[in-house]
């Protein structure tokens, strides 16, 4: 855990969800809850079988973008810890792609912060997915649903309140 309580990693290797959750909350008795989201490679997309997926990213900008997204989450909710791990390279169905972990005194901040991080990451971090299908390779198109999911947070001001657990 960094002193700031934010961990950002972009890596080819898999990650250990339990270890990352422990790193965000261990030794922090003020943490009352941890929320985590893990994104996986699906074996079907748009009606086509997906044999594998390759994730490309923009080294340098990716880390900056993820750090900015984490900072935005921390400005909106009282988070004691944030962890974002995103993989790149060739992944197979069932493989883990991304992990987002948030720790807070209360569950509302942890849940909302975790969802916010995923929604913003999907539209603001420079990653691109390419799928291998029986009809050949294809780049995944951006989804308007993802844009809407990110935009709805723009209408939601930071609820930096202390709510009952």
């Amino acid at each position: 855990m960094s002193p700031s309580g934010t961990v950002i990693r972009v890596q080819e290797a898999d990650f250990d969800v339990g270890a990352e959750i422990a790193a965000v909350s261990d030794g922090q008795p003020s943490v009352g809850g941890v929320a985590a989201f893990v994104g996986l490679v699906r074996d079907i997309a748009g009606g086509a079988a997906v044999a594998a997926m390759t994730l490309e990213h923009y080294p340098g900008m990716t880390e900056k973008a993820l750090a900015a997204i984490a900072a935005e989450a921390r400005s909106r909710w009282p988070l004691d810890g944030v962890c974002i791990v995103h993989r790149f390279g060739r992944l197979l169905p069932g493989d883990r792609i991304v992990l987002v972990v948030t720790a807070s005194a209360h569950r509302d901040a942890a849940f909302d912060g975790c969802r916010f991080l995923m929604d913003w990451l999907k539209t603001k971090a420079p990653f691109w997915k390419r799928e291998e299908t029986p009809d050949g390779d294809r780049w995944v198109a951006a989804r308007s649903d993802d844009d809407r999911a990110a935009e709805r947070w723009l209408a939601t001001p930071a609820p930096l309140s202390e709510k009952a657990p």
Partner: protein
Amino acid sequence: MKLLYFAWLKQRTGISEETVSPPDDVRTVAALVDWLRLRGPGYADAFADLRPIRVAVNQEFAAFDSAIGPDDEIALFPPVTGG
């Protein structure tokens, strides 16, 4: 200036990264793209339609009317699809 291309823009241009010296009157991303289109069929194909293309200047999201200079790093790519 340093240019980077990602995803299908990299495939269509056939280049992931290059250093270019466009004329002095190329002062925005839009002018840069107009100039790049003249460099060959791969570029013309990649930049035929700007609607599905996004821009970053010095690793920050930017717009086609953003100002650019010789020392800038400009990246061109499709909308992101991570997560």
